[in-house]
C-alpha cells in the first residue's frame, strides 16, 4: 500500500564531497539514491534499513534505498534525500511564474518494492 | 588624424570664447597642426567644446548594482537596444553599464567619476567601469567611516593616517578619498542611528566628524592628490544643516577641499521643521574662499534613485517614501542605503531643493568653483543635464518653469525676482567641462590646447538649448569619431584614471594586524591586482 509522505530533497556533506569525485561515480549515485525515513514510519511500511522503496509523484518516480532516522531527528511522514538525478524525476516543471519548481516539501507516494 | 574647421570654439581654459578656429587631432591628442590629407570635419554653424566631465555621479560598483537589481520596473520603461556592433542594455535612472557609457557619450560627455565606492568592492567597481564604454573614468574610495583611520586619528598619529590612506588608495586603485557623513555611518552600523552634528562624538572612537574631515583632508593635501578630499558633509537633507556645511568648510580654510552636492547641504530652518534656503550664505562663503570648491547636486523633477554611503540618511528617506529600501553595511569601511524616489514639483521640499540648486548656479559668480551635477541619480539622472543647461541659459524658460512649481517654496528663494542671469556658452563650457577637469586636477582634460586628450564634442547651434545639448552632432573620444551626424559610428573602451600616492611600506605592519582581527578576507587578497587595469592612466600627484 502506498502512503503519502512529504519529501525534502537537500544538500548533504557526503553529496558535496562525492560530487567532486564525479557525478557519474558510484559514491555520488549511492548518496543521491538513498532516502532517510523516520524509523516508526519504516516499521509501519514494513521496510528495513537498505530496503528499496519506490517514490512517485504525478510526474515521475524513482527507486531508492531506505535509511532509518530517529523520530527526534526526522518527524513522522517526512522524507529527506540528497538531491540529484533521482529526486529530479519527482519534480514537476511548473514554476508558477517564478522559474523555481517546487523542489522541497512536496507530497510523494511511498511504497515498498517487493 | 583629424581637423575640425569653421566651428565656434569654446575652450575657456585657454581663454577661447567662441572664436572660429581649427582644432587638430593626431594620435588621440590635440595638436597644433595636421597635414592637409587629414580628414576634415566642417563644423560651420556648430559649437566646439571639450568633452564633458562629470565629477560626481554614481555609475558603477556594489551600491549601483544593488540599485539596478532593485528597479526592474524602471528599466522596463526605457530599454536600450543593441545598435550595430554595440551592446544592448537597460536605461532608466540606473542604467546598465553599457547603456551608461553610451548615454553619457550621447550627451557629449567623455569623462565621468564614480563618486563613492567601498575599497573592499574596488574590484567590482573596476570590472563595471571596464564594461562602461567610451568614457574615461575613475572612482573615489570611501574613507570617512574607516575604522582603522578613525582609530589612528584618535591616537593623533598623523604620519600613520597619511600612509594608511595612501596604502588604501593604492590598494583600491582609486582616484581620491571620499568622505561621507563622517562618523555617522559608523554610528548607524552600531545601532545608534547617526551623529547629530559635526561636533558630536563618534561613539567608540571619542573623536568628532570635524576631526575626521580635518585629518583626512590634511593627509590628502600632504599626499598631493590631484583632486582634494571629496566631502559629503554630515546632516545631508536636514533642515538647518547649512551651519554644519559652513563649519566643515571653515575647518578646511586655506586648504583645498571639495564639498559635493552642496545643494543638499544648504538648508535653513529648524531640525525636523520645514527647510528654507541658505544658498546665498553658502555662495558668500565660496566667494571669499576660492580654495573651497563644490558641485551643485541639482534636483530635477521626476524619477530618481537615492543611493548613498550615508546609510542613516537613507533610512530616513525610506521612512519618508514608505517604499522599498536597501541597506548594505561594509565591514570596517562604510555603509550604503538605496531608496527609489520621485521629486514632485508640487511638493514644498522638493521644489525648494530644485530652487536652491538654481539659486546656487545663478548667484555664484565664479563658475570655475562650482561644477554642474545632479549627483546622478540622487537628484535625477544625468540625462537631465540638457534640460538643466536650458534652465541656466534661458531666462524665459526658467521663469515659465518657476511658475509651475510649489510657490510657497519659490517664495523662500530669490527665483521669483526674475533673475537676469543667463549662462553663456563659455560658462556652460566651464561648469560642465573646464571647471570639473581643473577641480579633478586632470591637466589633459576639459580643454582643447595642444597636448590635451582629443575628447571633443560638437553641437549644432540651436535656440533651444535643451535640444542642442541633447544631441551632439559629433563626439570625438581619444581622437576617434564615436558619434557622427548624431549616430554611433565606433565603439571605444575608455580608460581608468587612478592615483598611486607614495607611502612608507612599513605601514603594512599597522594595517595587516587590523585585517587579521577584523576583516573577513585576507590582507594579502585585498589589494586590486594590475590585471584589472586594462587601459589606464596614473594621474600624477602634485608632489
Amino acid at each position, binding site marked *: 500500500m502506498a502512503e503519502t509522505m512529504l519529501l525534502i530533497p537537500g544538500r548533504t556533506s557526503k553529496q*558535496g*564531497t562525492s560530487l567532486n569525485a564525479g557525478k557519474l561515480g558510484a559514491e555520488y549515485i549511492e548518496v543521491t539514491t538513498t532516502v532517510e525515513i523516520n524509523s516508526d514510519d519504516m516499521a509501519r511500511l514494513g521496510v528495513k534499513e537498505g530496503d528499496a522503496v519506490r517514490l512517485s509523484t504525478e510526474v515521475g518516480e524513482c527507486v531508492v534505498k531506505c535509511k532509518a532516522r530517529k523520530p527526534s531527528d526526522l518527524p513522522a511522514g517526512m522524507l529527506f534525500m540528497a538531491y540529484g538525478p533521482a529526486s529530479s524525476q519527482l519534480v514537476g516543471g511548473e514554476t508558477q511564474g517564478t*522559474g523555481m519548481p517546487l523542489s522541497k516539501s512536496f507530497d510523494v507516494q511511498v511504497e515498498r518494492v517487493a | 588624424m583629424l581637423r575640425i574647421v569653421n566651428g565656434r570654439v569654446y575652450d575657456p581654459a585657454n581663454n577661447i570664447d567662441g572664436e572660429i578656429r581649427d582644432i587638430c587631432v593626431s594620435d588621440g591628442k590635440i595638436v597644433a597642426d595636421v597635414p592637409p590629407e587629414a580628414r576634415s570635419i566642417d563644423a560651420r554653424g556648430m559649437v566646439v567644446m571639450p568633452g564633458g566631465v562629470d565629477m560626481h555621479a554614481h555609475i558603477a560598483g556594489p551600491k549601483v548594482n544593488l540599485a539596478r537589481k532593485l528597479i526592474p520596473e524602471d528599466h522596463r520603461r526605457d530599454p536600450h537596444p543593441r545598435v550595430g556592433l554595440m551592446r544592448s*542594455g537597460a536605461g532608466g535612472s540606473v542604467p546598465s553599464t553599457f547603456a551608461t557609457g553610451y548615454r553619457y557619450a550621447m550627451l557629449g560627455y567623455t569623462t565621468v567619476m564614480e563618486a563613492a565606492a567601498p575599497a573592499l568592492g574596488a574590484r567590482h567597481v573596476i570590472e563595471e567601469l571596464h564594461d562602461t564604454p567610451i568614457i574615461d573614468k575613475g572612482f573615489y574610495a570611501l574613507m570617512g567611516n574607516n575604522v582603522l583611520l578613525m582609530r589612528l586619528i584618535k591616537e593623533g598619529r598623523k604620519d600613520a593616517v597619511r600612509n594608511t590612506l595612501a596604502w588604501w588608495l593604492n590598494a583600491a586603485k582609486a582616484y581620491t578619498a571620499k568622505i561621507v557623513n563622517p562618523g555617522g555611518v559608523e554610528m548607524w552600523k552600531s545601532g545608534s542611528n547617526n551623529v547629530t552634528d559635526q561636533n558630536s562624538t563618534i561613539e567608540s572612537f571619542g573623536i568628532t566628524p570635524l576631526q575626521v574631515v580635518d585629518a583626512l583632508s590634511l593627509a590628502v593635501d600632504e599626499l598631493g592628490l590631484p583632486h582634494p578630499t571629496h566631502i559629503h558633509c554630515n546632516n545631508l537633507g536636514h533642515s538647518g544643516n547649512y551651519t554644519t556645511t559652513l563649519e566643515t568648510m571653515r575647518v578646511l580654510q586655506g586648504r583645498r577641499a571639495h564639498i559635493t552636492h552642496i545643494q543638499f547641504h544648504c538648508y535653513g530652518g529648524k531640525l525636523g521643521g520645514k527647510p528654507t534656503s541658505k544658498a546665498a550664505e553658502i555662495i558668500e562663503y565660496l566667494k571669499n574662499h576660492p580654495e573651497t570648491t563644490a558641485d551643485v547636486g541639482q534636483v530635477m523633477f521626476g524619477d530618481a534613485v537615492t543611493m548613498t554611503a550615508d546609510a542613516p540618511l537613507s533610512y530616513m528617506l525610506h521612512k519618508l517614501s514608505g517604499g522599498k529600501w536597501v541597506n*548594505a553595511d561594509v565591514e570596517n569601511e562604510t555603509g550604503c542605503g538605496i531608496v527609489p524616489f520621485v521629486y514632485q514639483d508640487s511638493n514644498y521640499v522638493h521644489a525648494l531643493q530644485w530652487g536652491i540648486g538654481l539659486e546656487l548656479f545663478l548667484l555664484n559668480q565664479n563658475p570655475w568653483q562650482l561644477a554642474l551635477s545632479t549627483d546622478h541619480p540622487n537628484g535625477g539622472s544625468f540625462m537631465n543635464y540638457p534640460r538643466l543647461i536650458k534652465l541656466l541659459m534661458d531666462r524665459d524658460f526658467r521663469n515659465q518653469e518657476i511658475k509651475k512649481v510649489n510657490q510657497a517654496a519659490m517664495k523662500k528663494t530669490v527665483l521669483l525676482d526674475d533673475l537676469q542671469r543667463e549662462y553663456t556658452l563659455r560658462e556652460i563650457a566651464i561648469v560642465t567641462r573646464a571647471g570639473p577637469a581643473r577641480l579633478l586636477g586632470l591637466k589633459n582634460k576639459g580643454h582643447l590646447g595642444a597636448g590635451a586628450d582629443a575628447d571633443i564634442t560638437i553641437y549644432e547651434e540651436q535656440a533651444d538649448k535643451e535640444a542642442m545639448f541633447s544631441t551632439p552632432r559629433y563626439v570625438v573620444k581619444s581622437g576617434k569619431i564615436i558619434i557622427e551626424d548624431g549616430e554611433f559610428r565606433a565603439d571605444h573602451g575608455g580608460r581608468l584614471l587612478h592615483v598611486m600616492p607614495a607611502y612608507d611600506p612599513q605601514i603594512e605592519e599597522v594595517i595587516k594586524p587590523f585585517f587579521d582581527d577584523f576583516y573577513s578576507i585576507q590582507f594579502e587578497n585585498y589589494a586590486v591586482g594590475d590585471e584589472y587595469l586594462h587601459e589606464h592612466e596614473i594621474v600624477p600627484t602634485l608632489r
Partner: protein
Amino acid sequence: MENTDKRIIENATCTFCGCVCDDMILTVEGNHITQAKNACVLGKAWFSEHTVEQRPFALIDGREAGTDEAVEAAAQVLANARFPVVYGLSDTTCEAQRQAVAIADYIGASIDTTTSVCHGPSGMAFQGAGESTATLGEVRNRADLVIYWGGNPAESHPRHFTRYSVTPKGMYVPNGRKDRTVVLVDVRQTPSAKVADIFLQVKPRADFEMLWALRALVKGKPVDPSIEEITGVSLHAMKDLVQRMKSCRFGVLFFGMGLTMTRGRHYNSGALLALATDLNEFTHFVAKPVRGHGNVTGADNVVSWQTGYPFAVNFSRGFPRFNPGEFTTVDLLARAEADAALIIASDPASNFPKAAIEHLKRIPTIVLDPKTTVTTSVAKISFTTATYGINTGGTVYRMDDVPISLRPAFPSPYPSDETVLRAIKDRVRQLLGQTA
C-alpha cells in the same frame, strides 16, 4: 611535462560553496593538491579531487575533437538557433560570465543562471521589498544574535559558523561564541541544530505564516493562538524570539532554500526580508541569503550590471527583458520552447525537473565543464575546461558581494571557460555578420 616540485600556495581561495574562503594554504605536488589547510570537508574534497584527467578536449556527437573544431560547431548551433538559452555560470569566473552574457546579447538568446533554481525567488523578493544586509565581516564583528532559517550550513557551508558568524571573535563580540545567541528555524533537526542555542521546528510549508506572525509581534500586534497549530511553534517561543530580536545590538537572519524552494517561494523570502527591515525600528538588523555555488553571486552581479536584471533575461528583441517564469531556464525547457542551449559549469540534466531534462535531451546542447556530468553526457558538443580557482585565476564574488581574486594552484592543459566562450562569441559574430 608535469611539474613535480612541491609548492605551497598561501591565501588561495576555495570556490566550492558561497563562503568563498580565501585563507587556503595549498600544498601542490605536480598536478595534485595534496593538502588543503584550513579547508572544510567540502573544500578538501574540492581540492583533492581536481586533478588533470586524461580527457578529450571536446566531444562532438560523442566523437573526440579539438577545441577549435568544437568552437566552430558550437558557433554554428548558436548562430542558427531561433530561441536559444544560455544557462549555468555559477561555477566559473566573472570574466567568463561577462563573455556568456555578451554571447546571449549578440545572438538574441535568453540568459539565466543557477540563481533561478536557488535564490531566484529571493532576488524577486529583493525587487519588491529591498533588503537590509551586510558583508560577513560586519557579522563577524558585531552580530550578537544570529538566526538561520531554512538552511543547513553545517552540511552545505561548513565554515559559515566558524569563519564568519558564530565562533569568531569580533570587534564588538570579543568573546566570540559566548557573546552570541544562535537560533535555527527549520522543518527538521539537521546537523546544524547542534550549533544553535535555540532550535525552533516549524511545520513544513508554514514558514511564511511564522514569519508573518513574527512581523506582527515585532509591531506589537496581536496574533491569534491558532498560529501554534499552523506553524507547530508555540506563541511563547515566538514572543521570546521577538524579544531577542528587538533587544539585540546587531541581529542577522541568514536564510536558505528551505524558504525559496517550498510553497510560498518569493513570498517567504520577502517576509523574511521585511522582518529584518522592520527590526531596524528597534535595533540594527540585517538579512542575507546563504548562497550556494562558489560564484553564483558573481553571476547575479555580472548579469545585473550588463543587463539591469539579475537572471531570467531575454534578448530576442534586441534589448534585455526580464521575466521569471517566462525566461527562466526550467520554464524554457519544460515548455519545450528553447531550441538550443549553451550550458556553462552546471548540471541541469541532473537537477532540473523531469520535463526540463527531457527537452534538454532533444535539443542541441553545448556544455562547458571540467568534469563529466549527466549534462555533458547528453550534450551535442562538450568542452573540457580548466577548473576555476584551481587551474585559472579570475574573480569570484562571495555570497555577500565581496569580490575576491583567485590564485590558481597548477596549470591545466584545457582552456578556461573564458577562453572558449570568447572564441565562440567571436565566431558567432562573424557568422551573424556583426563584425566591422
